[in-house]
């Protein structure tokens, strides 16, 4: 959906971003390095909420390797986990050519990284690519399932793949001994707050059978997207953080969430007074899986959040903003 970024100022030898953080690794917090490579971008590129395509640029193999080398300068031995994302699919050979992929995998293996996390659409999760990854390093394959409901995924998100495609990809990975991470989206456009929560809750429940870990993505308003145009006209409101807690509390098994943009108008938000505390609890929960963190949270706006959910069932399409 989004336009390609202006290319003139881009240095193709630099990755989009690199940062160090903490992540859950087999139920324990561990150091992690996240690398976002600037590739040609997602080939599908039609999801209604996604603005990442604006980061795409025609990077060559040399560019990609240079980006990776530069990113790895930040690597240290505490980083047991490395996440390499592309704002698209790491396993799409048009984004990351096989030779580049191979060099990256080998380099990570050589540095003794315990786990690699990559993201890919299911159509690129084929046995050969999965085997290649797993023969080098314990890999977690993250898939943007978004919703277990085909109608929602196809018509409200326009994701372009089915539940069966996800199940098949999961099977491929599990048969070869890999791990699956499933992203669940809270809340796609055109779903009311309540519908979105219900959809995410049931999606988490269903996806948990096919994934080792779930990641809840709170829909934020990215530039140049369909969602942004709806939001500008009052036709979309990002989810409440209270809604995120509902989903996190009900999910079976491990579920993490990084509330990107929490508290801002474009990001998931509550009333403004409690946003920081709730977002902080969500981040802590991602590392500890301790649901008690949520019990202490309280704000007057919970009443508003509940009331507006009921009222929103009577608007026949528009959110209450």
């Amino acid at each position, binding site marked *: 959906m989004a336009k390609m970024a202006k290319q003139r100022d881009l240095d193709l030898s630099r990755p989009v971003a690199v940062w160090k953080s903490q992540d859950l690794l087999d139920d324990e917090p561990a150091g992690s390095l996240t690398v976002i490579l600037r590739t040609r971008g997602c080939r599908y590129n039609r999801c209604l909420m996604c603005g990442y395509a604006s980061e795409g640029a025609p990077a060559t193999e040399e560019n990609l390797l240079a980006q990776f080398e530069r990113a790895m300068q930040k690597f240290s031995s505490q980083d047991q986990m490395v996440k390499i994302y592309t704002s698209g699919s790491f396993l799409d050979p048009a984004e990351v050519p096989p030779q580049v992929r191979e060099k990256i995998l080998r380099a990570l293996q050589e540095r003794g990284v315990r786990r690699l996390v990559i993201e890919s659409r299911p159509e690129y999760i084929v046995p050969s690519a999965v085997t290649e990854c797993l023969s080098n390093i314990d890999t977690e394959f993250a898939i943007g399932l978004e919703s277990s409901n085909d109608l929602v995924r196809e018509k409200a998100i326009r994701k372009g793949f089915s539940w069966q495609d996800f199940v098949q990809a999961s099977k491929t990975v599990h048969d070869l001994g890999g791990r699956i991470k499933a992203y669940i989206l809270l809340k796609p456009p055109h779903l009311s707050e309540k519908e979105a929560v219900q959809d995410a809750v049931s999606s988490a429940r269903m996806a948990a059978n096919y994934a080792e870990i779930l990641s809840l993505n709170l829909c934020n308003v990215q530039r140049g997207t369909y969602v942004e145009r709806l939001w500008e006209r009052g036709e979309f409101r990002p989810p409440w953080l209270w809604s995120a807690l509902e989903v996190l509390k009900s999910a079976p098994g491990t579920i993490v969430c990084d509330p990107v943009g929490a508290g801002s108008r474009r990001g998931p938000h509550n009333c403004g007074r409690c946003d920081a505390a709730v977002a902080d609890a969500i981040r802590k929960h991602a590392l500890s899986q301790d649901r008690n963190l949520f019990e202490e949270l309280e704000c007057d706006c919970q009443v508003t959040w509940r009331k507006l959910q009921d*009222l929103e069932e009577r608007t026949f399409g528009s959110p209450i903003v």
Partner: protein
Amino acid sequence: MTRYFEVLRRDGPARVGRLLLERTVSTPDFLAPEDYISAGSIFSYGSVEEALAAGEALKGQQKLTILPYVPAALHYPAIITLPDMETDGPKGVVLHPLSEERPEEADVYVMGSAGALKNPRDLVKAVIGCKNRTRSDSALYAPALATPANLALLIYLGIDLVDRTRVIADAYLGRYHTRDGVWEVGALPELPCRCPHCLALDDRIDPEKIAAHNVLKLEEELRIVRLMIESGTLREYVERQVRVTPDQTAALRLLDQEHCYLEARTPQHRSSAFLANTAESLQRVEVTRFGQRVLERYRAPNSDVLLLLPCSARKPYSTSRSHRLFAEAIGQHRRYLHELILTSPLALVPRELEEVYPAASYDVPVTGRWDREERAWLLDCLAAYLKKNKYARIVAHLEGELEDTVRSSGLDAAFTGGGTREDSLEKLARAVREACRDAVRLKEGRLQRYRAVADFYFGEGAGDALLSNDAHIKGRELQNEDKKALAMITPNGTMALSIEGARRLADRGSYIVTIGDFLPRGSLLAPGVVEADPQIRPGDEVIIQGPRAFGVGRAKMSGWEMVESRRGVAADIRKIVGKE
């Protein structure tokens, strides 16, 4: 299919109606949550089939059954189109408000995503679009949109049903509503309302109490709006009320540009006063329609002399002090000249039409100043009028800016300077005397009035048809050569035809309602109408014709609506006779 909605009264696009659910909803009204049952959005189901099955499962309801819907993105086409579905009770269908597709039949149409119609262009386009692609005997519901400030505009646009959703939600978002707008409740130095909910509000902001206040204000406003419709003054009220925000004022102006939509719904006559208080008043259908009819339907009597006069505050003009003084000054010359009154916003009122709506009942703030729009409208009309109606001599008894305006057009006339002082009237008398020298004496004034009024209501030539063969005046009646009544000008300025009068006009083919093979009594119901002249408007005198009946009556709805509707009174019958 059973029908559950009936329109009882109309005032422009605004309507008073009756929706038969478990309770009878008298529209305009709130559609309460307990009035309907909704299958909900397709996105609350796993598949379209599942959603349709849920819609199917709602059969057997007395409540309004709102079928499964596809949420609308206002500026994008519908995401999916669902197949038509049947219900066995009152049926509600959610519309994409800015799509152009004709929806399936329903009793109530719900404007999808109406709560997001904040832009005045979108709002006007959405309502007119929804009305144009649905039948007029269905109700239109705009959810989550109404506030005390915008309610009058929404109803005036043509929405029949609203709800309390928006003002309740706003209370929880700290927004405090009155008819004069919305405030952040925390920023109010004191509450401008003395309702029990506000009196009970202490320092703590309690959303429940604010919601109760907001709802009360909305309910009060609904009552006001209903009163305004009842008294025929909704337009005047809306012109005032839209001043609350520029967006609302813009919406009214945009609506006024949708002349066809408004004209097709504007009644021929109202018993209320017509107040032209604002710039928008000049754009009213009643004004343009009157102006158009004077120029197109009306023909001036063959008079050598035209006398231009100013309007008076009192209506009809003849009953005012100034016009009585003018009449005295003119004296016996009155039979030798034709009088045309110049005014705002109606521009030109021939003397014979001074009792016609809205000439007999308008009021306008008089300052003696004529603004640019008023001048342009007046001079355009006058130029067109004089192109059609020729006079040998013109006397202009006008004063101040009005005289300047007319002079500036280069009109060749004897300007007297106007006024009602003794010397002014003396000037008028002298000018008239001078102008009427050798002038031809006109036909009797009252006959001219009948001719003009008939032309005004039924089209050019109707007057001649009605007045043929020695028609004459007796009392307030026009009679034929056998002293049988032909027509009467009623005290409110409309024309009532007798059967005889109708026979004289029927051959012209206009203002005719053709009905089926039956003889109606009292009221003519819409289903009985086979065909109707599309120019018929509520309040028009109509001729009713069918294989077994001939009669006259008053239209209760527009001609296009008579044809389209399956419920409601099309016309009140005054007199009807059977045919062999």
